[in-house]
């Protein structure tokens, strides 16, 4: 028998309720297994943080560093991140606006400092000990710089990587 492949698993609804006289087929069993695999491969929202875009916030009063420990099952994951921020023409602002840097388990994974154009992406990450340590930080920025934005991270299990 083969293994569930999280990358290709799909959800089947058609014909999945058997009448009492129907024969159980290998196709039915495969669909049932793939339904479970599809559920397992869905994205999991891990963490989000809204650092206010506020005129009085300068580095001296910065909200970063921000640290969080997130429970996540041991194994290999694809992590998706989003950092966004904008303000309208009537927003009273001065100085420069940047996103924070994102570090996981002590390693820098996304450089946000120096950027204000909204950004999103993904990368593979090995999780150990059923947790990841997230840190938002900004070093070597001017005191009048604003570190802010809405940051969100979610994860998808890698294909074939199912840990108990």
């Amino acid at each position, binding site marked *: 028998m083969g293994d569930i492949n999280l990358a290709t698993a799909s959800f089947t*609804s058609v*014909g999945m309720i058997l009448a009492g006289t129907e024969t159980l087929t290998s196709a039915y069993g495969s669909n*049932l297994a793939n339904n479970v695999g599809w559920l397992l491969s869905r994205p999991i929202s891990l963490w989000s943080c809204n650092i206010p875009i*506020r005129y009085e916030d300068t580095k001296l009063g910065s909200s970063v560093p921000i640290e969080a420990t997130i429970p996540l099952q041991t194994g290999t994951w694809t992590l998706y991140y989003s950092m966004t921020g*904008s303000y309208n023409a009537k*927003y009273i602002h001065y100085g420069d606006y940047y996103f924070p840097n994102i570090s996981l388990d002590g390693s820098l994974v996304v450089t946000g400092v120096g950027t204000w154009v909204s950004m999103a992406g993904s990368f593979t990450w090995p999780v150990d000990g059923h947790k990841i340590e997230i840190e938002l930080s900004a070093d070597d920025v001017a005191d009048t710089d604003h570190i802010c934005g*809405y940051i969100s991270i979610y994860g998808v299990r890698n294909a074939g990587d199912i840990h108990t």
Partner: protein
Amino acid sequence: MADLTPNGSTGTFEPACWMNPEDTFNHADLNTLAENTAFFVQEYSEVMSAYHKVGIMAGAPNRPNYLDGDTVSSYTFLAGGTHQFLIYTSQGHYSGGKYIGSVTIDGTLACTFGAAGTSSFFTFVNTGPRWVQTTAQVVSFDITQTIDNYYSISYRRML
């Protein structure tokens, strides 16, 4: 044989599906397993959970000055197909209430909201796997006030 309807009803999860060695395995047991998987399809995934505080100063006619950013948004990589978004907004302690709020998904207006908040569904059909932006924005009346809102926006696949 009949079909599962993961999004056709609230669905139920039947925990009594564990087989002991002496039990007889039958169609009803399989159908229970199948219905249980359909139950989990109904779970929502979050795209935004945020507290949004906006200070406003009255300015030139109909052009208030914003002391804080007027939008909160996030990007989500969505699979192709139909997604149902559920949008909740509510006001916090400070909120002046004189504003028009809106939520857009992939550039399309999903709902508007005001002081009373909202609980809205929005169906979004994604043409293929890609990044989709969700944005909550407030447009203030020309008065001095503080707006503070809570946003909780999630989606689930429609199968």
